[in-house]
């Protein structure tokens, strides 16, 4: 695969990820408004959402019993996953090209992303 073709595949992947995520967030948003449209919205004081909405594992695990906020959060997680998928795909392509230096460089980036998304930050 040439770098040019890689660009094309990555472009399509990113667009598909964004569209899918927007569709899920939109669905969750409609559901949310059906339930709470006329309740007051007050975001003046910061109060973290419940723990189940604050971790990758919690969101995916909660999908068995979905609620509107969880669906939105899952959609947002899909959005965050699109650039991560791009990095994973790049590791594979660099490996196929036997480009060891860039496999290592890309794995470092992936490790930082993994630390941020998979490790809980109290």
């Amino acid at each position: 695969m040439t770098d040019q073709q890689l660009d094309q595949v990555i472009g399509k992947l990113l667009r598909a990820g964004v569209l899918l995520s927007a569709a899920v967030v939109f669905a969750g948003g409609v559901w949310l408004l059906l339930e709470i449209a006329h309740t007051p919205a007050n975001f003046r004081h910061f109060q973290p959402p419940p723990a189940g909405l604050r971790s990758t594992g919690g969101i995916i695990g909660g999908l068995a019993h979905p609620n509107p906020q969880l669906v939105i959060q899952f959609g947002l997680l899909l959005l965050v996953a699109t650039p991560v998928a791009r990095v994973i795909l790049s590791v594979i392509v660099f490996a196929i090209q036997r480009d060891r230096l860039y496999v290592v460089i890309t794995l470092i980036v992936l490790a930082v992303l993994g630390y941020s998304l998979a490790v809980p930050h109290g």
Partner: protein
Amino acid sequence: MDAAAFCGVVYGISALAGFLGALTGLGGGVVVTPVLTTLLGVDLHYAIGASLVSVIATSSGAAAAYVREGYSNIRSGMFLEIATTLGAVAGAHLTTALPASTLAIIFGAVLLYSAWHSLHVRKEVPAQKSDPLAVRLRLEGSYPGREGPVSYRVDRVKGGFSLMFVAGILSGLLGIGSGAMKVIAMDQVMRFPFKVSTTTSNFMIGVTAAASAGVYLSRGYIDPRVAMPVMLGVLTGSVLGARRLVAFRTRFLRVVFALVVGALALEMLVRAFGGGF
């Protein structure tokens, strides 16, 4: 305001921000936070969480259009992402340690700089010969020109890498894309051609923001009730804006947007010094 009205207002403002951001090339995320906090009284932490998410949406959305042109330099982007992602994680952790008023002051200063940067015309100075480190890392490349591929050299790798780390910190600290600083690191420090630096830094913005996203999520900055209308709004606006990009990209629009950004920056600084955060 009830939840439906809040959602509608935030969606509308975010769509406008995304539209103007795409037209001017400044990105919409940078305007969302000051508007949410100063006009709607939303807490800064909810605002930067929602803004960060919208930054990923515009970066990934725009990338699909950019890659077809073949200007971006994937290896350079990946190498520099080591700096931006590490910076982003550090910045995101720093956000929890700093008081909101300090964050607002930094935000105001960054906004003022972005406004100035958008009006300032930069000069493209091609590198005459490459930094040996750039050769070893194979950062040089070529892009399609009218008469075949145009190759370019890459200078000052360490300087560019360091500035990218700072861009990452600001991105993680404030939930913004730091596009302006990434572009400066690439075309002014490392001497990449403009087309290459713009498209490659757009690519990097999404990965950088994803690196802060995990920390933001854990801390509860990404609240679905705020992030939902912001993300959908910015995305709608930037898609509409990108379609009109060619026809509308005028100096006039840049000046208008810079003035809006500048005014928001001052409003934020005044409020921050007055204890409004």
